[in-house]
C-alpha cells in the first residue's frame, strides 16, 4: 500500500494505482478527456495525450497527468489549485480553438465529451484564435463516417482498433498541427481491412467518428405509398433503446419499440428474432450434418458481419470453417421477399426491408453482392442503428416512454427465448446447442435448456457439453482480439473444438457499435445482457425449433432444413480480402 495526500486528505492505496484512481476513491473528481478504462474488455487508453487531467504534485516542476501517473509513497497532490485549473482551461480552450463550433447541429450535441468538459469548466470565451485544421470527411464506407476536423486526438479509436480488436486500421498520420488519425496510406475506409464493428465510434468522445446516417432514406421509403416497408428489430436493440429516452439501463422496451415503429409509419413491424430461430434451424442442422458426415470442424457461427469480414481479411485459409448460414436479418430479408410476399400477395419489388440493428457492420453487410439473389433482389434494403432509431423516434415527435406495449405483426413476428439471447456473447451457440440437444437426444422428454457454462463475460470461454452421450467441445470469443487468439490456435492446429461462437464486439451485440453510447461504463453492457436472459426466461418457448411459425415456414415453403431451397435462400459464401 502507498500512503499519499490529495487535497489535504490522507489515503492509502494499492501500489500501481494512478493519481486519478486514488482521487476518485476519495470522491475527488478530476476532469478527463482522452482517458478511458474499460479494463473488463481490456480497453485501457492511458496515453496521456489530452493533458486535461493535470494536477499539481509537490516537488515536481511540471503538472502531471493524473490518469497516467502512478502514485508514489508520500506524494502530496493538489487537484484544484489555481495553477491546475488554469492549465486545464487553457488546454480545453486550445482544443476548442481547433474544433468546429457547430455544436447546435452536431451529431453529438448534448452527448459529447468535449462539450461536457467545456461546460464543466465553464468556458465562456476562447482566448486563442487561429485557423482550424481542415480535412475531408471520409464517407466511403457504408458504416462509419470519419471527420478528422472534430478529432481531439485522444487515440481511443486507435487503442480500440489496434489493441483490443487487433484490426489495426487507425494510426496517427503527419505531425504537429497537421496530425490526424487516419488509415494506412490515407486509404478510404471502404478499401481498408476495417470490419466496421464500430467500436471506434462507441469510444469516440466527439463526432469525429459517427455512424453513416441512413434515416433519411428510410423516411423516404415510408412516405412512398407504392412501397410496403417492413421493420425488423434485432434482439439487442430492445434492451438498449430505452436508455436513449432516459429509462434505466437494462429496461426491456420491446412493446414500446414495436408501438413506436408502427407510429413512425412502418407497414409491418416484425422481428429479426424470428429469423434467428430460422438461423438455428439451419445452423444446428449444419452442425449435426458436419459431425455425422465427418465434415470440417469446428463450425464457426456466422451471424456477426464484422467477424465475417475479419476472417476474410485476416484468416483466408480458414474460410471453409464458418457456417454458410446468412446472418438472421439477411435470412429475414430473403424470406420476406419470397414467402411473405407470396403470402401477402405483394410484388417483392415493392417490399422494402429495414433492419434495426445494434450494429454498424450490418450496413456494410447489406451491400454485399453475394447477399442479393436474382429472385429476391437485395435481401435487406436499409440498416439503421439503435442510435438512428432513437433519433427518428424523436424526429417523429413520439413520446416514447408513454407508448403502450404492442405486439409484433403475425407470421414473422413470433420468436423463442433462444433467439433473444443472440444479442449477447454465448447466446447464439447456446441457442444452437438447445436445438441440437433436443434433436440428438430424441428419447429425453425434457432436454436441457439452460447451458450456463456458455455464459459469462470472459473474453475467451471454453466449455464441454454432453448431449446424448456425445461430448461437444465449445469455444466462445467476443472482441476481435480474442477471436484472433482463438483462430490462430485453430489455424496452427493447437486447439480442437466442435463449434465456436465469435462476436466482434466486446460483450456481443449488446455492446454493438450502433448502440446508445455506454458512457464509458462497462456495467451498462452487463445489464443489457442480463435483460436479454430475463426476456429469454419469460418466453413460453425457449428452443428455436419449437417456434410454430418456423414449422409452418418449412412446411409451406422451404421444405427440409438445410435442404435445396434453404441453401439457395439462406446460405452464402465467403471470399478472401486483402489485408491492407
Amino acid at each position, binding site marked *: 500500500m502507498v500512503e499519499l495526500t490529495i487535497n489535504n486528505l490522507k489515503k492509502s492505496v494499492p501500489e500501481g494505482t494512478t493519481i486519478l484512481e486514488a482521487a476518485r476513491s476519495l470522491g475527488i473528481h478530476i476532469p478527463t478527456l482522452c482517458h478511458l478504462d474499460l479494463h473488463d474488455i481490456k480497453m485501457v487508453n492511458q496515453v496521456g495525450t489530452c493533458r486535461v487531467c*493535470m494536477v499539481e504534485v509537490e516537488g515536481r516542476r511540471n503538472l502531471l497527468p493524473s490518469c497516467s501517473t502512478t502514485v508514489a509513497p508520500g506524494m502530496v497532490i493538489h487537484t484544484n489549485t489555481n495553477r491546475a485549473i488554469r492549465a486545464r482551461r*487553457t488546454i480545453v480552450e*486550445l482544443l476548442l480553438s481547433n474544433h468546429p463550433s457547430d455544436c447546435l447541429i452536431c451529431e453529438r450535441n448534448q452527448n459529447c465529451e468535449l462539450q461536457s468538459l467545456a461546460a464543466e469548466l465553464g468556458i465562456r470565451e476562447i482566448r486563442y484564435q487561429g485557423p482550424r485544421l481542415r480535412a475531408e470527411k471520409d464517407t466511403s464506407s457504408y458504416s462509419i463516417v470519419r471527420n478528422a476536423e472534430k478529432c481531439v486526438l485522444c487515440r481511443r479509436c486507435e487503442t480500440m482498433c489496434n489493441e483490443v480488436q487487433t484490426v489495426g486500421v487507425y494510426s*496517427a498520420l503527419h505531425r504537429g498541427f497537421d496530425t490526424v488519425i487516419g488509415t494506412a496510406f490515407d486509404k478510404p475506409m471502404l478499401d481498408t481491412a476495417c470490419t466496421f464493428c464500430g467500436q471506434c465510434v462507441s469510444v469516440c468522445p466527439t463526432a469525429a467518428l459517427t455512424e453513416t446516417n441512413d434515416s433519411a432514406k428510410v423516411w423516404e421509403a415510408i412516405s412512398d405509398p407504392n412501397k410496403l416497408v417492413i421493420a425488423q428489430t434485432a434482439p439487442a436493440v430492445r434492451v438498449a433503446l430505452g436508455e436513449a429516452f432516459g429509462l434505466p439501463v437494462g429496461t426491456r422496451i420491446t412493446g414500446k419499440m414495436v408501438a413506436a415503429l408502427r407510429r413512425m409509419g412502418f407497414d409491418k413491424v416484425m422481428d429479426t428474432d424470428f429469423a434467428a430461430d430460422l438461423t438455428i434451424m439451419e445452423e444446428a442442422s449444419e452442425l449435426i450434418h458436419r459431425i455425422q458426415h465427418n465434415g470440417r470442424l469446428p463450425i464457426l457461427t456466422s451471424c456477426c458481419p464484422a467477424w465475417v469480414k475479419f476472417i476474410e481479411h485476416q484468416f483466408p485459409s480458414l474460410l471453409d470453417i464458418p457456417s454458410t448460414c446468412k446472418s438472421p436479418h439477411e435470412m429475414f430479408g430473403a424470406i420476406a421477399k419470397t414467402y411473405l410476399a407470396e403470402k401477402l400477395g405483394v410484388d417483392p419489388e415493392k417490399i422494402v426491408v429495414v433492419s434495426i440493428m445494434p450494429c454498424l457492420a450490418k450496413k456494410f453487410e447489406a451491400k454485399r453482392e453475394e447477399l442479393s439473389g436474382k429472385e429476391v433482389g437485395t435481401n435487406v434494403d436499409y440498416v439503421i442503428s439503435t442510435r438512428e432509431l432513437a433519433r427518428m423516434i424523436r424526429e417523429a415527435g413520439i413520446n416514447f416512454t408513454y407508448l403502450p406495449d404492442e405486439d409484433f405483426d403475425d407470421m414473422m413476428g413470433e420468436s423463442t427465448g433462444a433467439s433473444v439471447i443472440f444479442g449477447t456473447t454465448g447466446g447464439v451457440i447456446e441457442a444452437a446447442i438447445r436445438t441440437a440437444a433436443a434433436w440428438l437426444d430424441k428419447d429425453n422428454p425434457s432436454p436441457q435448456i439452460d447451458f450456463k457454462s456458455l455464459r459469462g463475460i470472459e473474453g475467451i470461454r471454453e466449455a464441454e457439453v454432453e448431449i446424448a452421450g456425445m461430448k461437444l467441445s465449445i469455444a466462445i470469443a467476443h472482441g476481435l482480439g480474442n477471436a484472433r487468439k482463438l483462430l490462430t490456435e485453430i489455424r496452427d492446429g493447437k486447439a480442437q473444438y466442435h463449434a465456436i461462437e465469435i462476436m466482434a464486439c466486446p460483450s456481443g451485440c449488446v455492446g454493438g457499435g450502433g448502440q446508445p453510447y455506454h458512457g464509458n461504463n462497462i456495467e451498462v453492457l452487463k445489464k443489457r445482457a442480463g435483460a436479454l436472459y430475463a426476456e429469454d426466461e419469460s418466453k413460453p418457448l425457449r428452443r428455436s425449433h419449437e417456434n410454430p411459425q418456423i414449422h409452418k415456414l418449412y412446411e409451406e415453403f422451404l421444405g427440409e432444413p438445410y435442404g435445396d431451397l434453404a441453401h439457395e435462400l439462406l446460405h452464402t459464401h465467403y471470399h478472401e480480402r486483402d489485408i491492407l
Partner: protein
Amino acid sequence: MSSMTSQVRIALRNCGVIDPENIKDYIATDGYDALAKALFTMTPDEVVETVKKSGLRGRGGAGFPTGVKWETARRSESDIKYVLCNADEGDPGAFMDRSVLEGDPHCVLEAMAICGYAIGANQGVIYVRAEYPLAVKRLQIAIEQASELGLLGDNILGSGFSFNLKLYFGAGAFVCGEETSLMNSVQGGRGEPRLKPPFPAVKGLWDKPTNINNVETYANVAQIIRRGWEWFRQFGTEKSPGTKVFALAGKVNNVGLVEVPMGTPLRTIVEDIGGGIRNNKKFKAAQTGGPSGGCIPAEHLDTPIEYESLIGLGSMMGSGGMIVLDEDDCMVGISKFYLTFTAEESCGKCTPCRIGNMRLLEILDRITEGNGEEKDLDVLENLGNTIKDTALCGLGQSSPNPIISTLRYFRKEYEEHIFNKRCPAGSCSKLIGYKILPEKCTGCTVCARNCPVSCISGERKQVHVIDQERCTKCGVCFSKCPFKAIIRG
C-alpha cells in the same frame, strides 16, 4: 589570429588528430584501454561508481547525472538489456555529435561496450541520422574493424563479456532525439514520446531496461574509466564537472567547434575563441540550447557556463548549439524562427504542443507583420508557461523558452513591433521599406538590374524610384547600391 588556449579537449581529443577510418590510430592513442581496464580490473559496480563519482552529466540537453542512469539500468532486473546511443542530433546549428562520430567513432563504441559491461547489457544500438552519411560510413567502418579485432562481439579480449552493436538510421524527425520517441522509432513505430515514468532505465527499448546517452556523453566515458573520476573532476565546476563542446555559429568571426571547461564565461567563447562579432557590429545575444533554449543578453556575458547558471538565465545547455546574434537580428524574429521549427517538428501527440505552439506562432506572425495587439504579450507569456507546464515531453516542455527568454530580456523590442509597428533591428520585412535618396542616386541602374521583381524604374543617369506596391522588401537593392543611396526604414 586568435588564441585558443582556453580550450580543453576531452570529448574531441582525437578529432583532427587520428584517422577515424583506421582503428590502429585509435588504439595507438590508448583506445580500448579503458574497456580492457574495466573488463579485467573493475567490477560492473565499480564502473558505475566511477562514472557516478566523476559527476558526468548528460551532454544532450537536460544534464541528468550519467552514473545515476547507469546505476538504475544496472539495478533493473531483466534477461535482456540494451545500451542506446542517441546520435539524432537535431538542433538547428548544432553539429558536435556529428563531428565526434566523423572524427573519432571508436570512442563512442568503446564507451557503449563499457556501459554494456556496467549495466549487464550485451546489445547496443546507435540511432544515427541518415542525413549524416559520413558519420554513418565511419561508424560502419569502425564497427567492422572493432569486430574484426575482437573488441566488439563475443568474448571481448577473452574476458567472457560479449557486446554487439547495430546502427539504426533516423529519418530526420527532431522529436526522435527525445529518448522515448527514439525507442519507438527503433521499434518501427511512430516517433512519439512515451509517458515517463517508467524511465528507459527500467522499461526502455522493447520494454527492456535501457541506458541511453548521447554521443558527447559517451565520448567522455573512456577517459573517465582510464584515468579515474578524480582526473575528470579537475576540469569544470563542482556541479558540472568536465568540459562541454559547443557548435559556435552566427555572427562571430570564428565559427566552429569549441570545447571548454564547464564554468568558462560566455565572453571567453564569444570574444576570445569566437574572435568577436563580425564587421565590428555589436553583440546582442547568444542563443544557447537550440529550440529549447533561450537568448542570453550582453549584460550576462560574464556568466560562467554550467547547467544551472544557464537555466537561471532562462536558457539551457541543450546539446551545445550556440548562435551569436548581433544588432541586425530581430529578437521577435528569432523566437519565430525557433517556434516555426518546433511547431513543425512537434509530433502532435499532446494538445499543448500540437495546438498551443501553433497559436503562439500565429501571434508571433501577427506581431512581425505589424498586426500585433497589446494583449498578445500576456497571451504569449501565459500560454507559453502553460505549454511548459503541461506538455508531454521535453520538446513541448521547452518549446516556448525562446519566446519567454526574449520577452524577459528584449520586451521593448516586442513593444516596438506592437505599438509603433517598427522592427528596431530592421529585419522584419513587413515592417520595413526601402527608399532611394534622390540626392545620392546617380542613376547607375545597378539596383534596377538586380531587383528580382523588377519594381525599380528610372532612366540611366536619372534618379530611380522603387514601386512600393510591388516591392517584396528583399533588400537586394539596399546591399547592391554602390552609392549608399538606398535607405531602409
